[in-house]
């Protein structure tokens, strides 16, 4: 087995050893059951009809011909199925709070009128066969009154722009306030006065669809007033709660089953409209309903990373000290504010004078939402290209410029531990930074130019509440109950390893029960890189509870069992807890045809103690490759005249294939800061945060041209070189 490069800590008994997934055989034999693999007796198939217009009022919907088609069982539209999808429009990041639904100014229903983007849901059909359901869609007659539309966030805020909601196109926050998100520290104008040089640049980034391999689907089945949903969810506990809230049920009346799922990267958080549509159809039809989205529907009807425009203004003294950072930015949210629209990165710098103003803006593009580190990669690209550009303009090595200006622990802001200097210095040495970078960007002779880029990140690794139950029987077999799903990182295996370590038994003595809200306690969900540290910590505490019981009562005998459980509320004692990373990349740009090739990619991460080095390594490698795709290829382009999306799908978005992939070198510097499960920190999202920034910086170093727009496609390079 190939192994991750690690230094700093020795493995424990179970933790820290390269461990094959406990469910690996299911995954390589086709036995792993994904949502669409379930079959229930009498199951119907459902399809959704979607708007072909970017903005239109529905004048009428005639379903009579579709309803008459033999095999069609139920049809629902905005007229007869007004279900609020609470998580579909949260107006600002508080999706798990019940009052949200009342506070939401701009309600999103499962079917909306007017429709506000190409792909907005109009109707759904359940039929005995998926082809009949598709035929029925073609028989539904919808009369639309087309409305003016707007695609670009800055244009949407201009006077006279088409209004997507009555209050205008600035998306309100979760309290309904119509104001941009402002973060103001120190005195930015005083900082500019103090500066010797001031730099201003506009950066922009594209819409990146999550593009997980498994398209959205949901299988709903009712027994009386109890709903069971088989659905690919990144958080079964939250999905249950959201679904119950939206359908007017109690939590215990909803069961969510999600074990194997084909990725998500943030677009399978909470519940989805597919869950509510399947549940509504199933109730009307009196039969289980499997709703399947096509790949194009998934691309347009779910969500992806919000596109942004970022205006930076930075003041620097001649000694290299940053005195002020200002950013005014716009995030394109589509017509519903499904998530925050955040843009992070400025906070990595120590500079005391900072002003950040982000406008989350409604547009008639598809909805934006969470994608792996939702606020980070586009913001870190912007700010770290800004800083890299400043460093080269001032004749300073960007690594030195970073080390001079980066945020470090202070007396009033202590960290559990701080490793940024170490990961940067280790990466620079492994990569041979000083030899690979061009101190004069673009200085290679000839049309094929090489250069090197660097980026860094710090990302939250805070603690939080989750639950776990562990049981032992008379055969000394342990069963761990955790409400995790396995979206890909290997949570089932990781939870089993943590339990085995805490219990002092081999992994083979621990069975893991997972992915079913009727069998497992609350778990925080596979989002925010939280499962390992939060649910993992609950597993440790549940194991401690069980060990105390065994110590006082002895091991059970006969039919007896002992059960330990925990719902800890851990804290970091007021300290900042973060993971750290640095990336170094060498590229080769053919300036005649605009192509970029990755020659070398070195990563160094500090994510605390690594539970399973194999799967942790592949979280970093996979995240980096997604970040390279964001840097070079992926975007959802629209035709400005028709408002039609032009590049939905893997082929048109130019997703990376096997042929495009460099070897990603991964080193973990391991630290146990005394918090979290055995000192583990966050890993899953961290690798993508800094990858686009590093690639873009390397292209600038190779070509001598700062690329201010992601993705850096061939046309942009050719344009910059012209």
């Amino acid at each position, binding site marked *: 087995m190939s192994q991750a490069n690690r230094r700093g800590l020795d493995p424990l008994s179970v933790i820290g050893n390269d461990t094959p997934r406990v469910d690996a055989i299911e995954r*390589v034999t086709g036995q792993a059951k994904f949502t669409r693999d379930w079959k229930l007796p009498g199951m119907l198939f459902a399809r959704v009809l979607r708007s072909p217009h970017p903005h239109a009022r529905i004048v009428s919907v005639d379903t009579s011909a579709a309803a008459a088609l033999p095999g069609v069982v139920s049809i629902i539209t905005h007229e007869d199925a007004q279900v609020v999808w609470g998580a579909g429009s949260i107006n600002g990041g508080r999706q798990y709070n019940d009052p949200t639904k009342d506070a939401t100014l701009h309600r999103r229903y499962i079917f909306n009128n007017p429709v506000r983007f190409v792909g907005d849901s109009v109707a759904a059909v359940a039929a005995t066969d998926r082809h009949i*359901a598709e035929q029925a869609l073609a028989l539904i007659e919808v009369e639309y009154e087309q409305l003016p539309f707007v695609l670009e966030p800055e244009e949407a805020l201009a006077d006279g722009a088409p209004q997507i909601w009555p209050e205008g196109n600035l998306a309100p926050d979760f309290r309904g306030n119509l104001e941009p998100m402002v973060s103001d520290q120190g005195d930015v104008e005083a900082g500019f006065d103090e500066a010797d040089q001031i730099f201003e640049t506009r950066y922009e980034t594209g819409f990146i669809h999550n593009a997980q391999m498994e398209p959205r689907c949901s299988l709903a089945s009712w027994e009386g007033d109890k709903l069971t949903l088989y659905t690919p969810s990144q958080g079964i506990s939250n999905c249950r709660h959201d679904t119950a809230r939206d359908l007017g049920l109690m939590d215990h009346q909803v069961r969510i089953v999600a074990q194997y799922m084909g990725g998500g990267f943030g677009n399978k958080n909470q519940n989805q409209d597919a869950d509510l549509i399947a549940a509504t159809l199933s109730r009307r039809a009196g039969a289980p309903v499997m709703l399947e989205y*096509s790949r194009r529907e998934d691309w347009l009807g779910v969500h992806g990373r919000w596109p942004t425009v970022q205006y930076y203004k930075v003041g620097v003294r001649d000694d290299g000290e940053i005195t002020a950072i200002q950013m005014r930015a716009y995030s394109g949210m589509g017509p519903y504010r499904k998530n925050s629209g955040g843009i992070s990165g400025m906070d990595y710098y120590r500079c005391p004078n900072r002003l950040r103003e982000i406008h989350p803006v409604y547009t008639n593009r598809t909805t934006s939402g969470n994608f792996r580190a939702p606020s980070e990669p586009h913001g870190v690209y912007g700010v770290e290209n800004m800083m890299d550009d400043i460093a080269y303009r001032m004749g300073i090595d960007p690594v030195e410029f970073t080390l001079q200006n980066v945020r470090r622990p202070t007396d009033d802001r202590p960290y559990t531990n701080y490793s940024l200097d170490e990961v940067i210095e280790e990466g620079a040495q492994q990569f041979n930074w000083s030899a690979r970078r061009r101190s004069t960007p673009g200085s290679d002779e000839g049309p094929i130019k090489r250069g090197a880029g660097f980026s860094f990140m710090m990302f939250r690794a805070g603690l939080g509440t989750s639950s776990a139950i562990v049981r032992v029987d008379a055969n000394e077999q342990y069963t761990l109950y955790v409400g995790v799903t396995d979206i890909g990182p290997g949570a089932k295996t990781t939870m089993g390893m943590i339990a085995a370590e805490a219990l002092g038994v081999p992994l083979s003595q621990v069975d893991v029960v997972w992915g079913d809200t009727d069998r497992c306690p609350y778990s925080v969900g596979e989002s925010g890189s939280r499962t390992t540290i939060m649910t993992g910590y609950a597993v440790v505490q549940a194991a401690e509870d069980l060990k105390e019981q065994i110590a006082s009562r002895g091991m059970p005998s006969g039919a007896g069992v002992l059960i330990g459980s925990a719902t800890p509320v851990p804290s970091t004692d007021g300290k900042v807890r973060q993971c750290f990373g640095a990336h170094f990349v060498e590229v080769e740009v053919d300036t005649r045809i605009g192509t970029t090739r990755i020659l070398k990619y070195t990563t160094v991460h500090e994510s605390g103690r690594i539970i399973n080095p194999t799967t942790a390594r592949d979280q970093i490698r996979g995240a980096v490759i997604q970040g390279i795709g964001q840097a070079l290829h992926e975007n959802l382009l629209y035709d400005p005249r028709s408002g039609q999306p032009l590049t939905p799908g893997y082929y048109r978005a130019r997703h990376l294939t096997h042929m495009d992939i460099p070897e990603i070198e991964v080193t973990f510097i391991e630290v146990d800061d005394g918090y979290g499960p055995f000192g583990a920190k966050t890993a899953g999202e961290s690798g993508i945060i800094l990858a686009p920034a590093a690639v873009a910086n390397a292209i600038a170093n190779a070509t001598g041209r700062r690329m201010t727009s992601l993705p850096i496609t061939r046309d942009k390079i050719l344009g910059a070189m012209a």
Partner: protein
Amino acid sequence: MRDKSKPGPSETDSSVNYLDPKAQSRRDFLEGTGAAVVATAAASSLGVGVASAQESSRSARSAISLTVNGVDHSLEVDDRWTLVEVLRDQLDLTGTKIGCNRSECGACTVLMNGQPVYSCSQLAVWADGADVRTVEGLALNGQLSPLQQAFVDNNGPQCGFCTPGQLMTATALLQDNPSPTAAEVQSALVGNLCRCSNYNAIVEAVVAAGDQGGAA
């Protein structure tokens, strides 16, 4: 258009050549299933179905025979059913996944007469008389193939949704080229996307399987 009366896609897919990395591009692979690509691309717009507006929901049906993982099957299929629908819905072989249903991702890859094909883009009637192998047919008597074992040992799957397709294409590669280099693996698997982007580990697994004796 493909002549429906001819069973199997062998006349186009016999051009697959894994020994020469330049011989097979992703686009070639897609064009090998050209007729079906056109049909599904036109039909998949916003989920609107294949059929034009008509009052009957019936489809013409045909009787076909095919061998799947060594077992002979004779069944009647709708002419509009794809091979992957028959495998998953009629034969309960749900290991083969549908990722895009339009020849973009490769999750549905199966071996048809020994060659990898996108089963989402093969009509079931075209498989009449064919010998089909799916991920369920890789392990023999409960024993993983060396390739499957290498995927277990090298973390080949992350979410696992693309894994069956990766395994089937790699199985075909190893039959032609028992000890491929990493570059040969990348070339052969170019039509199998992995959004977890676990590409490094997948290539390492296939190379390791080659070192241990191939697909067998």
